[in-house]
């Protein structure tokens, strides 16, 4: 029987796949199609990759966007953790209200970003507030979706042992749904990156979104690609760190 590939083999095959893609890209766009409107020439991309750090003050930009995202993610998680029993109480006792609120999920995030920039002046504080609210909403939504997967047996056992409702919410249901909730974190993290960049793009403020706007205004095609590579590397690194922390915090299965 064929053996299942282990983690190392999987990483190795992913790296090999990436190298193959890069090789094809290099040959195709450096030598065969050097002038095109599809992808930038590899040598130009390399040049731009070095120059964007000075041209767009990328270190400052990176500091603003990453601080906003990871700070708000951490704060929202703490908020969810502190209010978990109230959230679960609302979910289990007022499920009809939750169902009604679901109508807002069809509103595009873009609209909320515009609305927010209309309400508040362009500032870092407004951006952090927007990111915090977005992060909280994404987390609450993931949290309540995870609550549906709660194992009834654990609740029965806790009730049978005479625990109070609030203790059951906090000590049993929250712990039981935590693996599922935590598994949604990478997705929330990715969505938050998009939302924050949309906000920065609309308001043309410092941060990756604002830099994208500037690069677009200058028709810096190669710059756009270089910035995208930096962003994707940051999102990848963020995901790796989040998954590592999650595995350490939540070691059990749902």
């Amino acid at each position: 029987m064929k053996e299942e590939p282990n983690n190392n083999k999987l990483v190795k095959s992913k790296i090999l796949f990436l190298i193959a893609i890069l090789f094809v890209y290099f040959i195709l766009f450096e030598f065969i199609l050097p002038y095109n409107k599809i992808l930038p020439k590899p040598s130009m991309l390399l040049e731009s990759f070095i120059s964007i750090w000075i041209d767009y003050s990328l270190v400052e930009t990176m500091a603003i966007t990453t601080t906003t995202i990871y700070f708000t993610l951490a704060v929202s998680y703490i908020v969810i953790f502190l209010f978990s029993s109230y959230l679960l109480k609302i979910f289990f006792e007022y499920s009809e209200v939750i169902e009604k609120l679901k109508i807002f999920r069809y509103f595009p995030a873009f609209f909320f970003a515009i609305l927010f920039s209309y309400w508040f002046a362009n500032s870092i504080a407004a951006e952090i507030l927007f990111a915090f609210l977005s992060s909280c909403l994404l987390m609450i939504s993931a949290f309540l979706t995870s609550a549906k997967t709660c194992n009834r047996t654990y609740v029965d056992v806790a009730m049978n042992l005479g625990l109070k409702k609030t203790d059951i919410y906090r000590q049993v249901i929250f712990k039981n749904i935590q693996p599922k909730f935590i598994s949604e974190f990478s997705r929330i993290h990715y969505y938050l990156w998009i939302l924050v960049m949309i906000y920065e793009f609309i308001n043309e403020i410092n941060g990756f979104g604002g830099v994208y706007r500037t690069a677009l205004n200058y028709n810096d095609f190669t710059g756009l690609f270089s910035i995208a590579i930096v962003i994707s590397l940051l999102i990848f690194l963020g995901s790796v760190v989040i998954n590592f922390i999650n595995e350490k915090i939540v070691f059990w299965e749902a």
Partner: protein
Amino acid sequence: MIELKNITKIYSDEYGSKINLFGDLSFAIIGSKITSVIAPVGSGKSSLLKIISGLERETSGQIIKQKEGKVILIPSEPSSFPWLSVKENILFGTGKTAQVNIDELTNLVGLEGYEYHYPNNRSIGFRFRISLARSLANNPICICLDEPFNKMDDETKIEIYQLVRRINEITGITILLATTNISEAIFLSDKLYLMSKDPGRIFSTLEIEFQILRNSFLFNSNIFISYREQIESLFIGLDSQKLLHISI
């Protein structure tokens, strides 16, 4: 002793029609002994145990307990919390002021040395031992077992049966088992109630007594086989034989 008098439980099915699960169900659970209720699948065994343990309310009837205290249910699914260590699991629900001798309990259920281990990814037998120790730590008047042995392998089953018997002998806590497995019930119990389906009611009672040790050889003994045949014939009389799962 816990006595059930004329218990009924009416619930609505998905089409809204009322279904009476029990037909004036009455029986008594003897103190300090192991009592079993053998019933076909879908006869309301789990509901019965939930009613006795206070997780569900009966529609009518009366449950009389001679002593005040917790009636603890060990469900069929593993119920030890995977996010808590063995020790934390055992102490769960006991309250901050309770004095629980962890060493004594872990020794009793065979978990000595595992106090700081986690039940996550452990065997069903291991997780059952935790649930049993937790039940004992909560000082119950009765422990209800809702077919918790179903997913265990045969060797573990016998080990756990013997553990349950030993705990009953040492602590004197009343144990009630609800099962579809005739052999399991005979091996474990001092008294058996046979329950029918639609509606659930006790149609026969049997006292179980062995002069030999309750170990794996018991299943092949003449007295064990005769008890089993007697129960099977009683169920055949009710035409619910096909619904019973008989193993070992």
